[in-house]
Structure formats: C-alpha cells, structure tokens
C-alpha cells in the first residue's frame, strides 16, 4: 500500500520488477491503444489516472484494474482483436 495515496502498489505479473523507463514506455504504448477508444492515461508517481474526453477519470493501480476501468469509462469492452485497432497499431 502506498502510504501517500492509499493505492495498492503494483505487483501485477506484467509489471513486476520493471524500472521507470519501462513504465514510461508502457504508458506511451497504452495511450496509443486507449486513444483508439477515446481514453487517455496519465502516470502520477506510479499511479495510473485514466480519463475520458468528458473529463471523467478513475485512478487505477495496475494493468489488470486498468482494463476494467477503461471498460467502464468507454462503456464497452476494449477488444485487442478489434480489426480497426489492429490496423491503427500496425500503421
């Protein structure tokens, strides 16, 4: 638990043992994906802040929680197999 903000510190399998550089790269890649669904991700000292275009936001601790929050904000599942997303990322 982060003593400052009360958010659980990440021990997610996909983020375990990573450094700051990997996290910066992750956030950049996540924003390419999330942007396709009208969402934007910020990284506030190790805590993800997810926002939609209407200004609604959610604070999330790790990748697992991120996708659940993104689904709530987008109002639909974010499917990585969506052909239009795959095309957008491949460009």
């Amino acid at each position: 638990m982060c003593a400052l903000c009360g958010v659980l510190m990440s021990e997610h399998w996909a983020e375990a043992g990573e450094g700051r550089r990997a996290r910066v790269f992750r956030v950049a890649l996540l924003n390419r994906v999330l942007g396709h669904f009208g969402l934007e991700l910020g990284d506030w000292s190790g805590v993800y802040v997810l926002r939609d275009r209407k200004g609604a936001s959610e604070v999330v601790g790790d990748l697992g929680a991120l996708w659940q929050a993104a689904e709530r904000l987008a109002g639909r599942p974010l499917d990585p197999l969506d052909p239009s997303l795959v095309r957008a990322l491949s460009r």
Partner: protein
Amino acid sequence: MERRAPVAVLTGFLGSGKTTLLSSLLEHPSMGETAVIVNELGEIAIDHHLVRKVDERTVVLPSGCVCCSLRGDLADELRDLLERREQGELTPFRRVVVETTGLAEPAPILATLLSEPALKHRFRPEVVVTTVDAVHGSRTLDRHEVSIRQAAAADRIVVTKPDLVETEDVDALVRRLRELNPTASVVAASFGDVAPRALFAGPGKKRAAAAARPIEPSGDHGGVHAVTVILDRPLDWTGFGIWLTMLLQARGADILRVKGLVDTGGSGPVVLNGVQHAVHPPIHLDAWPDGDRRSRLVFIARGVERDELEASLAAFAA
C-alpha cells in the same frame, strides 16, 4: 531457493475418482508431510496426514467475474494452516493438496493463491490435476461446461476407471483430452495407480519448459478448441503484457487457458501459464528447451481464431 509451499489442486467432475486417486497417492512414501484440504471427509485414507475440511465459499468480487472470484474458505484455511504451523500446533507439511468438489471451477482457486497478499508469498500453485472418468467422461464433456473448464485448466489429466471400458474407448477419450488440452500430460490409471512423480512437479523450470509444442488447430469441443499462436520475431515484453491483460479482460470468459513460451530476445524464453484471468508469475528460462526458438502460445478458447490472435499480438508487441 523456493520457500513457498506448493499447492496442488485435484479437480474433476462428480464421481470421476478424485478421492480414490488422492487416497492412493497419499499411501506413497514420497507423499508424507502433505496437508490435505477436502470438501467431504469421505473414504479418504487419512491416518498419517493432516486433513482439513472446508465448505466451498466463493467470494464474488465487484467486477462480477467468476474466474477471478476468490475462494474465501480456502484462503482462511491456508492462513490457519500457516499460523498453526508457526505456533507449533501442527506437524510440518511440505505440500498442500486441495481436492475440489465435482462442480468446482479451478480458476478461483488459482486466483486466490496468486492474488491473496497473505498467501502468495507463502504458497505457490504447483499443478492442477484433473480426473476424467473413462466410463462417463466423454458424455460429461459434451454436457457439462465445467467439465471442459476443469480439463482445460489441467497440467495433468488422469483418465480413471479404464478397466471398466474397452481399450479403444479409453484411447479415444485420451485422444480427445490431448486435443482439447495439448498442454497437459494425459495418463490412464485404475484405482489411482499413478506414481506421485508423474503428477506433481519436479524441477519447476524443466516442467515449465515442456509448456508448449506447436499443434495443429484442434477439433471443436462444445465450441472450445485449442490453437497455437506462433511468432518468429522476438516480442516486446511490455507490449505483450498490455496485449494479454487486455485480451483476458475482453475475452477472459472464453479463454480457458493460455500456456507457452515467449521469446523476448534473451538467451531463453519466458514461460507463461494462465487459467482464465489467473496468470502465474512468468518464469524466465536460461535456455530454450529445444531448437525451436519461436514464441508459441497455446490458447484453449471459444470464439477466437489463430490468425486474429497472431495479427493482434504482432501489432502490439512484434
């Protein structure tokens, strides 16, 4: 050195021979110091083992996802085992075996072991052993979704009661199970006559390396089939993690299992093993187990095809 106690999960449909198998295993000298958590104190041979009974109690999380729901009963029992062992009230144990009810989903057990803060540093999921009855197993797979899920979650499958049917029927069931879950080893055994070493993990990395051999797309099993995704370029681990977590959130109910080796450009691959949303901590190997150095992931899933998985993964991580 690994200090977490291994937890083996023994599952299988109603009447498929779990208790017979467990009783037989526990008679083996190498199975001493085993703590057993069961739902029913039936005819299990318990004399020299620590046996605890629990009533399955599943805590559904706010997300409502069944596979990520936590088994509160199991968590309480494991915490109690630890506390009492540390206070010297119990004999030491080296391994825990959890025998589920016949209708239990294996994924919540793994989710509990992998996510409960008080447990995940003290216990590790070792292996999922699933029993399938040679007499009724094929019909059960046809009719009961949970039976498919139990077989898909397995690392080892024991076909029980083979002495009660013709050899050809046993062979056909074994073939079907290998096709449904190509990541599991399948053995047939009467009266639980299986050596513990054939079921429980030896050296972790060696076992893990046997994770994924490329397979042809399997036949349809109630809408579920196994496909292997193969990519011959190293994958970016960050992109891979984003892709898989997103995929499991969007399609987790339909992806019963994912297991394989991922080439991240190192000297050896990363071993990945997940049952629905419950993903084991990845294991880094020092070397590839064979000459094939391509990333390969076996998915046991419903409604996803190899081509779309490969194209999507490549867009995220290649």
